[in-house]
C-alpha cells in the first residue's frame, strides 16, 4: 500500500472518494427518514388536510349561479349594468327558460337561497317565480316576468345577479367581516342590523383572552408550589392537576351544569347558608359566566403543566442569592423569579388561547346566547341555516388566527418541545 500523497483524494475502503461516499450516506439517511415519515404524512394529507382544503374552497365557490341559470348568465355578461337600463328581451327570455328548467328539476330554490345571502328577498322572488313560470308559454317575457313579480323590473335585481354570476366569489368572506359587495358602490359595510360577525370574533377573542388570564392567575401559584415542594409531595399533588386533564370534557361540562344551574349545588349552598334569598338565585349558566368558569376549569391544566416544567428548571439558588444580597423577598420574586418563568407563561398562554378560541362543546352546553363562540356559529351555519359558504369563510378566518398563533408558539417554544402530561 502506498502512503497517502498530499493532494490525493481520500477514499473509503471500497475505493470511492470519501466525499462522494459521505454524500451518498447522507442521501441514504435522508431517504430512509423520509420513507419512515411518508406513511403518516400521506395519511394526514388524505384524511385531514385535503378535507380542510376542500371545505375552505367552499368559501369561494359560486358555481351554483352559472349552473342554475347558464343562459341568462351568458347574456348578462354583455349587459352594461351601470347604464341604468334593464337588460333586453333576450336576457328575460333566457331567464325564463332557465327558471323553467330549474323549476322542473326542483333546484332553482337553492339559487334563491344563495342570492338571498347577498340581498334579502331574493329567496322569495325565486320561489314565487318558480311556482308561476311554468305556465308561461310565449313572450314577451319581460312583461310576463315583471307581472309575476315586479322586482324583475328593478334594475338592482339584475345588477345583483350579474355581480354574483362568476364561478368564484369573495362574497362569503366579505359577509364574514360584516362587509358586502354592492353592485353599484363596490365593497361597503354591511347594513347595521346585519353586522354580527366582527362582534362575534371580538367576543370570542376577548373571552378567550379572559380565560387565558384567569388560568394564568390560578395556575401560577400552584405551579410554583408544585415546583418548590419536595418531589414526593409534588408528585402526589400533580395528580390533582392531571386528573382533570384526563377526564372527559363532557364529564367536566356536565358537572359544571350540575354546579351552576339555578337549582344546582352552588345556588343551593348559598341559599342554605343564608347568603342568598330563595327568590334571588344567581344566574350562572346559559350566559358568559357559565362559559368562562367552565372553560377556565377545563383549560387550567394546559397552563399549569408548561409553567411547572419551566419553573422546575429554575434553580432555587437564584432567589436565595437575591435575598441574601438584601433584596426584599417580594421584590426578588418579581425581579428574578417571574422573568425566568416568562417562557412558561408564553407557552401555556398561547396553548390555552389557541384551544379556547376553537371551543365548541362547552359554550354550546353552558353558554346560552351571550356566551357562544364563533365555532358555534360555524356549526349553526353548517347544520341549520345551511349557509355552508359562510361557514367555510368563518372557519377560514378562525383557522388563520389559530395558525398565526401556532407560528408564534413555534417561535417561542418550538413545536419540538411540546410536551404532554
Amino acid at each position: 500500500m502506498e502512503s497517502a500523497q498530499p493532494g490525493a483524494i481520500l477514499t473509503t475502503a471500497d475505493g470511492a472518494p470519501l466525499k462522494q461516499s459521505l454524500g451518498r450516506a447522507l442521501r441514504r439517511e435522508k431517504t430512509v427518514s423520509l420513507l419512515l415519515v411518508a406513511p403518516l404524512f400521506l395519511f394526514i394529507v388524505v384524511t385531514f388536510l385535503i378535507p380542510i382544503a376542500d371545505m375552505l374552497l367552499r368559501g369561494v365557490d359560486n358555481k351554483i349561479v352559472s349552473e342554475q341559470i347558464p343562459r341568462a348568465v351568458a347574456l348578462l355578461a354583455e349587459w352594461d349594468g351601470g347604464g341604468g337600463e334593464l337588460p333586453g328581451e333576450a336576457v328575460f327570455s333566457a331567464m325564463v327558460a332557465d327558471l323553467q328548467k330549474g323549476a322542473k328539476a326542483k333546484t332553482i330554490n337553492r339559487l334563491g337561497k344563495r342570492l338571498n345571502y347577498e340581498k334579502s328577498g331574493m329567496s322569495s322572488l325565486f320561489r314565487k317565480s318558480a311556482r308561476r313560470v311554468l305556465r308561461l308559454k310565449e313572450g314577451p317575457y319581460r312583461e310576463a316576468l315583471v307581472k309575476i313579480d315586479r322586482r324583475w323590473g328593478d334594475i338592482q335585481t339584475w345588477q345583483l345577479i350579474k355581480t354574483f354570476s362568476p364561478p368564484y366569489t369573495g362574497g362569503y368572506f366579505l359577509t364574514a367581516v360584516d362587509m358586502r359587495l354592492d353592485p353599484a358602490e363596490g365593497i361597503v359595510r354591511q347594513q347595521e342590523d346585519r353586522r354580527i360577525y366582527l362582534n362575534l370574533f371580538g367576543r370570542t377573542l376577548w373571552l378567550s383572552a379572559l380565560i387565558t388570564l384567569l388560568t394564568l392567575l390560578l395556575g401560577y401559584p400552584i405551579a410554583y408550589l408544585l415546583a418548590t415542594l419536595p418531589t414526593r409531595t409534588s408528585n402526589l399533588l400533580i395528580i390533582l392537576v392531571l386528573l382533570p386533564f384526563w377526564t372527559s370534557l363532557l364529564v367536566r361540562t356536565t358537572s359544571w351544569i350540575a354546579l351552576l344551574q339555578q337549582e344546582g349545588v352552588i345556588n343551593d349552598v348559598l341559599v342554605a347558608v343564608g347568603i342568598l334569598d330563595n327568590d334571588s338565585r344567581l344566574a350562572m349558566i346559559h350566559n358568559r359566566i357559565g362559559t368562562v368558569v367552565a372553560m377556565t376549569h377545563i383549560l387550567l391544566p394546559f397552563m399549569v403543566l408548561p409553567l411547572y416544567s419551566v419553573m422546575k428548571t429554575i434553580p432555587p439558588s437564584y432567589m436565595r442569592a437575591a435575598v441574601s444580597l438584601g433584596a426584599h423577598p417580594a421584590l426578588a420574586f418579581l425581579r428574578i423569579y417571574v422573568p425566568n418563568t416568562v417562557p412558561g407563561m408564553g407557552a401555556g398562554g398561547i396553548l390555552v388561547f389557541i384551544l379556547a378560541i376553537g371551543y365548541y362543546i362547552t359554550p354550546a352546553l353552558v353558554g346560552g346566547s351571550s356566551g357562544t363562540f364563533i365555532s358555534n356559529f360555524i356549526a349553526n351555519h353548517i347544520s341549520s341555516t345551511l349557509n355552508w359558504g359562510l361557514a367555510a369563510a368563518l372557519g377560514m378566518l378562525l383557522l388563520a388566527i389559530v395558525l398565526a398563533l401556532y407560528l408564534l408558539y413555534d417561535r417561542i417554544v418550538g413545536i419540538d418541545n411540546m410536551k404532554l402530561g
Partner: protein
Amino acid sequence: MKFPPYTTPLERLWHYVFRIICGAVFFFLIFPIVVIIPLSFNSVPFFTFTDAMLSFDPAGYSLRWYQDFFTSLNWQRAVENSAVIALFSTLLATALGTLAALGLSRRHVPLRTTLMALLISPMIVPLIISACGMFFFYSRVNLQGTFIGVILAHAALGTPFVVITVTATLVGFDHSLTRAAVSLGASPARAFFKIIVPLILPGVISGALFAFITSFDEVVVILFVGTVEQRTIPWQMFSGIREQISPTILAVATLLIIVSMLLLTSVEMLRRRGEKLRGITPQ
C-alpha cells in the same frame, strides 16, 4: 412547619395565605369532578343534593342510574362502538405515528420543522373546522356515517400525540449505539429490537393511551362524521345532555372518571419508567 429563625411574621403569614390560595385552586380543579360521584347515587332525578342525601338517609341513595346504564341498549351500543372505534383508531395512529417519529428523530431530515408542523396540525386546528371539513369530504367519498370513516378521522386526531411522545423518548438518543451494535455483528433488525424498541416503548404506549383517550372522549367530529350507528359514549352523553339530563349521565361520568384514573396512572408509571431507562432522574 418549621421556619428558619430569620423569617418575619409577615412572611410566615404570607406562607399560610399562599398555601390557602393554592388549596383553593386545587379545590377548584378537583371539586367539580368529585362532586359528580355522590350525585350519581341520587335516588331522585335531580342534579343536586337532596335533604335525604345530606342526612345520610339510605333511602336518599340508590343504584338506579347505574342499573339504567347497564340495562339500556343505547348505552350498551355506545360502549361497544366506543371500544371498537377507539381500539382501531389507536392501533392505526400508533403504528403510523411511531414510524414517523423514528423518521423525524434521525439526524438528517429535510424540512424537519415543516413536516413536524404539518403532522401536529390535527391537534391545533379547531375541532369544529376539522369536523366540518371531514363531514363534507367524507360524504363525498362515501365514508360519512361509516365505522371506517370515524376510525380514520379519530386516528388522524390521535397521531400528533404519538408523534410527540415517541419523539420525546428519542431526544438525546445516541445514534452511535445502534451503529455500534451493527458493527459488532448484530443485524439491523436485531439492533432495532434490542436497542430502539425498549427505549421508545414507554413513549409508544403512553402515546397510544393519549390516542385512545382522544378517540374515547371525542364528540365534535363524531357528531358530524358519524351517524347513530356509530354512536359512542360521548355522542350519547352529548345528546343526553341536550335531551334529558337524567342522572344516568352522572353515572356514566363517574365510570368515565374511573377510566381516566386508570389511564392517568398507567401514563405516569410509564413516564417515570421511561425517564429511569434513559437515565434521567427527577431532581
